[in-house]
């Protein structure tokens, strides 16, 4: 009798446990994603906004991807081989991969994609990322050989982002400039429609090469720029997953029923770009004055509610390249005052900083404004919509500009583009030959320990020259509804939906 009861009890336990453990990955459904900004373009080779990559990661296949531990994993390239002392990369491509328009993905297409990115006429933002690429050769329909002009340690890591995203040649040739609004890739979802500032819809691509994937029928991106509104939309079930939660809401989110919160270290840095070619920031002492005047700890405590970390350089704590001895700086108003005097402006000066019209950015800028004011520096704030801010950044149209960098898995991606005199995102036009040397050396060095030493020197030199005023390394936080299953949170913050399904019962 006793044994029988136990058996029943066991059965009950087992039965009760079944739904939790063996739930089938259900097909179908639509996931609604709350974004902080609208996509700016759907052409990955022209994109310069982090937000774009979110959509791309589901529309475009990449040669390789990263996993949660920053490891490089196969995607469109099934395997690869590095030869010639790090100069030659041979990629074996996956067989039978199709674009959404039905055309085949082949070595020829890979070569054409690289040619497109390297074409000066396209003025691709990818061009500088893959600058070391000297030659792309089609070995056979499924083998590509890429030769570099110099060893380039971050190469595979670069290919996990937009430079590795393959677009359909047929579609580009058909739509020309309008490809930016008619994207065609090999990803798990195909593009359906984009109503600017309202929504961008993707549908399941039935011809996706990974069988059985994706689970979802549809993904709808909704830009909701106001973070509080976005969070409320999350809590009231209008969206299923949200990108970029305001740090003030993280506590509330964790206490909320039916909502999951994941907080990991990100690759981001936030900071001020000081235009090194425009007065008064042509003057190094003046840039240093700002460097010493701003209290990153206050920024972290007040604007970010203690989340993330104060930033004194381009490398976040999640990165092996960060020099831990260099992270406990303090604000130094006395030194800042002295630097102002050195720069010939002992009573301060006035300048305008451009920023994104978002609460957290405005708050951060007001903190900086108040701290500079103590030194007699009058910082005016001009707020812009994100696209316009980006356009101003890209056309060097600023004295100072506040923007963030979403970061790259390899430290090179957080520093080289910004600090090298030929860096693709060196919009402040900073130039120091010693810095160039250090950065070039670090990217051609394969040994991580040696690279770490070089990046420590980069950090110190950047602090000395102060072309940027780094402010903060964000925490990477994602919030999603409990019925969203199978979501893998990766430090690059990209939401990959191919393995996600909805458990709405």
């Amino acid at each position, binding site marked *: 009798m006793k044994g029988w009861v136990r058996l029943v009890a066991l059965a009950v336990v087992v039965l009760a446990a079944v739904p939790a453990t063996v739930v089938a990955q259900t097909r179908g459904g639509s996931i609604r994603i709350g974004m902080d900004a609208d996509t700016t373009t759907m052409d990955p080779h022209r994109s310069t906004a982090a937000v774009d990559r979110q959509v791309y990661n589901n529309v475009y296949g990449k040669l390789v991807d990263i996993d949660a531990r920053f490891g490089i994993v196969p995607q469109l390239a099934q395997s690869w081989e590095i030869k010639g002392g790090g100069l030659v990369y041979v990629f074996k491509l996956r067989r039978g991969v199709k674009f959404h328009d039905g055309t085949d993905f082949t070595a020829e297409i890979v070569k054409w994609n690289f040619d497109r990115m390297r074409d000066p006429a396209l003025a691709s933002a990818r061009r500088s990322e893959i600058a070391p690429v000297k030659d792309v050769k089609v070995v056979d329909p499924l083998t590509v050989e890429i030769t570099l002009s110099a060893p380039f340690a971050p190469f595979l890591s670069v290919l996990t982002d937009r430079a590795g995203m393959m677009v359909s040649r047929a579609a580009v040739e058909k739509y020309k*400039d309008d490809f930016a*609004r008619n994207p065609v890739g090999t990803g798990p979802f195909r593009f359906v429609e984009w*109503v*600017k*500032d*309202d929504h961008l819809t993707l549908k399941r691509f039935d011809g996706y090469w990974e069988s059985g994937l994706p689970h979802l029928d549809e993904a709808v991106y*909704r830009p*909701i*720029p*106001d973070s509080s*509104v976005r969070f*409320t*939309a999350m*809590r*009231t079930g*209008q969206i299923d997953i949200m990108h970029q939660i305001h740090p003030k809401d993280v506590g509330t989110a964790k206490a909320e029923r039916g909502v999951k919160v994941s907080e990991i270290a990100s690759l981001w840095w936030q900071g001020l770009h000081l235009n090194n070619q*425009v007065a008064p920031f042509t003057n190094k002492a003046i840039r240093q004055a700002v460097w010493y005047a701003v209290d990153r700890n206050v920024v972290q405590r007040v604007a970010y509610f203690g989340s993330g970390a104060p930033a004194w350089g381009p490398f976040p704590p999640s990165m092996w390249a960060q020099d831990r001895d260099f992270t406990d700086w303090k604000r130094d108003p006395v030194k800042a005052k002295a630097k102002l005097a050195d720069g010939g402006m002992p009573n301060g000066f006035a300048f305008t900083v451009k920023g994104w*019209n978002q609460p957290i950015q405005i708050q951060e800028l007001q903190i900086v404004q108040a701290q500079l004011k103590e030194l007699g520096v009058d910082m005016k704030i001009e*707020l*812009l*919509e994100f*696209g*316009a801010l980006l*356009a*101003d950044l890209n*056309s*060097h*149209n*600023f004295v100072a500009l506040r923007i963030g960098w979403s970061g790259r898995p390899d430290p090179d991606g957080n520093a080289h583009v910004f600090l090298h005199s030929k860096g693709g995102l060196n919009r402040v036009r900073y130039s120091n030959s010693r810095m160039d040397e250090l950065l070039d050396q670090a990217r051609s060095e394969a040994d991580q320990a040696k690279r770490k030493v070089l990046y420590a020197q980069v950090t110190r030199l950047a602090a000395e020259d102060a072309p940027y005023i780094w402010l903060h390394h964000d925490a990477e936080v994602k919030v999603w509804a409990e019925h969203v299953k199978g979501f893998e949170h990766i430090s690059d913050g990209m939401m990959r939906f191919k393995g996600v399904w909805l458990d709405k019962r």
Partner: protein
Amino acid sequence: MIQFVARRLLATVPLLFFVSVVVFSFVHVLPGDPAILFLGEEATPETLAQFRARLGFDRPLSTQYLEWLGRAVRGDLGRSLRTNQPVTEAILQRLPVTLELLGAALAVSLAIAIPAGIVSAVKRNSGVDLASTVFALVGFSLPNFWLGLILIYVFALLLRWLPPSGFVPLPAVADNAKSLILPALTLGTALAALVTRQLRSGMLEVLRQDYVRTAQAKGLSQGVVVGKHALKNALIAVVTVVGLQIGGLLGNTIITESLFALPGVGRLMIDAVFSRDFFIVQGVVLFLAVGYVLSNLIVDVLYSYLDPRIRLG
């Protein structure tokens, strides 16, 4: 009647012409240089010249104006400087949302104002009268962005009855209605206050007039009197107020859409202002002004239908 409409229509044509001149001068005559605003003060003279040439800013103003007008008349308002999307397409894409919001706000405000106005006139000096008089005085002074925040706080954050923002398009009727209730209240309250006030005083005036008193003396019930005589005349007052407030309503749409993240024409304009996308701004201003002129025309016609004396004027 037809003659009146024709005369009114005819008078609208030159008005629209001048409106187009003003809108054109927005980008071209006002002291701000769009090329510099767009490219920045650091832009080289060459890039500025290129930008102006690309947009045809380097030709005589009169030529530019005539070309622009010619295209505008055919519905071509140029293209967005940022996304290259045709301006007309961008506006039309968002128009349904704005129209729906306007309709909902109008409905909400009349649903509040008509009962409030009538009851407070008929039951003068009652509690209802006092309440609606206070509402009429106060409602008009409520900043709608503050009212919107209060509504979001109470109904979306505290009670969680309604979504705090966003728009669910038709045909999802229930969700669509839910997403519009708070915006409609935000936009419609000031109008409701004005209409209540006008309706109340309009009805009081009518109720005091001799023929109404006679009707009452003849033993007609109050309901009949109010229904037959007072209401029709009072409705004229309503049409007047609504007509006068269309401009305010259109302007406040911009704030409401921005507050509730509704993808309407107003938000298109705000985003364009922050993007310095002048052709979108210009297009929306022209579009709204033309819409305003035309809706005034409709109100006038409606008015003359309700009150034939107007036609003589």
